[in-house]
């Protein structure tokens, strides 16, 4: 076995997506990277597990039972722990294409994006209109509202943040989204699905924040552009589950010389003058275990490796449901997202349902995996907070739900101690905040903006 080098440019702890993208980028840029995970699998908190591993993680069965055996071959299951989709015109897609990691992966469209109106027995779901033509057909609006919506969508398409002529006389520096909605005389229910199902805001805070309008409009454009890319929905999803994403970037890193060690626990981070300078670690799973020490110019990692250096900023509630039917009201689609806006069910935060199926090679034929999630608002009875979402899912064969999942953020930006910590995967339904975090960490750690376009050019070895 090769020796561990005495020093690395970057030591990365945890193989979540954020860490693996950074590891891949640093390796391509010629940095010497050591990448460690305490688990024996890739993905960290955002891994995809098989059904046996999922039962074992949640422990919801009696000793001696093997409930996973009724669900076919264990390895036909790839169940995401964190539900997210890629926006097809989003930043993660851009990074995947620029780094050529798309070569290792195959993507499929998510078949539909829906929004719920009403609650309880009167609740209905409808497809989120993505362009002017769909707006005119949508059951979400009355006849006059449809026209207003059409002119709003057309205006969003022509909006240029730099050209005041496209701003309808509004001052974008201070303008709130409420003023924009007012300008188009849009009804409350329309504002609701625009803000929550298209701009994908989790709560209503964005409406009254001065100067927020350009960002909201940009989000609506991203939604529209993403739908326009392949039709049907703005989302795409990797075959075999989201766990393929970190594996793909880890392979990129390895191809450019990155060293990978799973099943390795970090015993200590060593410091000199308040700055992290290396790690002591133990690789298990071999006889005898291998203890080693190495120096690092900087250390990156997920919050779980740096207790005391992070704070909790909220909690997410998640229920992973195994079902054997498509979701009601989604035209029997093989996959979908349903958003239940907070206003419809008397909450402050939306409830999301993400559903994928055998069409994505994440479960055997006939099954679907639906994950219901929201941001926790109370301190007890969390299953009740998810209830409107679970109702929408319908008959559930297996449900996996843990205590509220804390969301961590680093206390400091890393410039003082050379430790650059990622944020937990948040409650949003896509990866845009994850790639924001990647860019943010990269600029703090490398002291320059991350440019992924053309990243591999000039370094790539020719193919025959």
């Amino acid at each position, binding site marked *: *076995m090769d020796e561990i080098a005495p020093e690395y440019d970057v030591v990365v702890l945890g193989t979540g997506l954020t860490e693996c993208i950074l590891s891949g980028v640093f390796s391509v840029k010629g940095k010497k990277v050591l990448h460690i995970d305490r688990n024996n699998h890739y993905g960290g908190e955002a891994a995809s597990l098989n059904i046996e591993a999922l039962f074992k993680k949640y422990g919801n069965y009696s000793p001696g039972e093997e409930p996973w055996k009724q669900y076919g071959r264990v390895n036909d299951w790839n169940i995401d722990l964190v539900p997210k989709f890629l926006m097809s015109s989003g930043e993660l897609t851009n990074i*995947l294409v620029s780094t050529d990691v798309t070569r290792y992966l195959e993507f499929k469209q998510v078949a539909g994006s829906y929004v719920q109106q009403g609650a309880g027995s009167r609740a209905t779901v409808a497809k989120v209109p993505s362009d002017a033509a769909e707006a005119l057909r949508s059951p979400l609006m009355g006849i006059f509202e449809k026209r207003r919506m059409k002119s709003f969508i057309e205006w969003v398409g022509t909006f240029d943040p730099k050209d005041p002529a496209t701003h309808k006389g509004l001052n974008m520096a201070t303008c709130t989204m409420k003023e924009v909605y007012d300008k188009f005389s849009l009804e409350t229910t329309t504002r609701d699905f625009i803000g929550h199902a298209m701009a994908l805001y989790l709560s209503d805070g964005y409406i009254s924040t001065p100067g927020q309008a350009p960002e909201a409009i940009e989000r609506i454009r991203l939604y529209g552009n993403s739908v326009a890319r392949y039709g049907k929905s703005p989302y795409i999803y990797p075959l075999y589950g989201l766990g393929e994403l970190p594996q793909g970037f880890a*392979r990129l890193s390895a*191809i*450019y010389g990155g060293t990978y060690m799973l099943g390795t626990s970090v015993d200590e981070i060593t410091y000199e003058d308040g700055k992290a300078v290396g790690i002591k670690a133990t690789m298990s799973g071999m006889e005898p275990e291998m203890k080693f020490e190495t120096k690092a110019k900087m250390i990156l990692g997920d919050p779980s490796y740096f207790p005391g250096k992070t704070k909790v900023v909220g909690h997410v509630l998640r229920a992973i449901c195994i079902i054997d039917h498509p979701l009601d009201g989604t035209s029997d689609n093989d996959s979908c997202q349903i958003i239940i806006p907070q206003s419809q069910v008397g909450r402050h935060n939306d409830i999301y349902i993400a559903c994928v199926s055998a069409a994505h090679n994440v479960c055997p034929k006939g099954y679907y995996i639906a994950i219901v999630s929201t941001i926790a608002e109370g301190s007890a009875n969390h299953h009740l907070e998810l209830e409107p979402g679970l109702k929408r899912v319908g008959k559930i064969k297996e449900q996996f739900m843990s205590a509220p999942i804390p969301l961590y953020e680093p206390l400091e930006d890393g410039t003082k101690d050379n430790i650059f910590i990622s944020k937990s995967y948040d409650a949003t339904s896509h990866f845009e905040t994850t790639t924001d975090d990647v860019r943010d960490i990269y600029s703090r750690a490398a002291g320059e903006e991350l440019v992924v376009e053309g990243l591999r050019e000039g370094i790539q*070895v020719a193919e025959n």
Partner: protein
Amino acid sequence: MASRGPPGARGGMNTRFAQFKLVLLGESAVGKDQFDSYRESTIGAAFLTQTISLDENTTVKFEIWDTAGQERYKSLAPMYYRNANCAVVVYDITQASSLDKAKSWVKELQRQANESIIIALAGNKLDLVSEQPDKRAVSTADAEAYAKEAGLLFFETSAKTAENVRDLFTAIARRLPLDQVGPRHSRPGQRQGVSLNPESPNTNVGGPCAC
């Protein structure tokens, strides 16, 4: 991203073009890097390709995946084995221990990869024993007996002189199910997903993919 789709003639009148994923495994220093004679370096290559013409009308392209060193500390990702149609497990005929390692890779493949995976065992560095027969540490008969028992194709090769390398790829190609739809876009237009390539047409689900 041009390597994914077949170049040129996509299954014209009587031509067949099939693409398969091949994974390379074996102990360190047995010669995996040299194995594909077109290979330049492991650094920076997603995977290399090797094209074999079986006859006038049939071309098989191997998409060769190297472990990129991820096996060194038991960190090979499931993605590596995923949908691999075939594997070449390499050992060094001048190092007895490398055959033991090869056997453990074969076990790992049988555990992790598709049931239908075709595995070839390659006893490499044949040129060394041609010059100095006493350097041989693994007899041909022993390795062949093991390969037969485990259901593997078997060749002794020299990656250095290219002896038997092409024969080995050809033998694998002949065993592959050229007429069936392979699990991994093994024929033109078989890719089931969407192309993320910016230039690609808007809707190409199920259609031929150029990425």
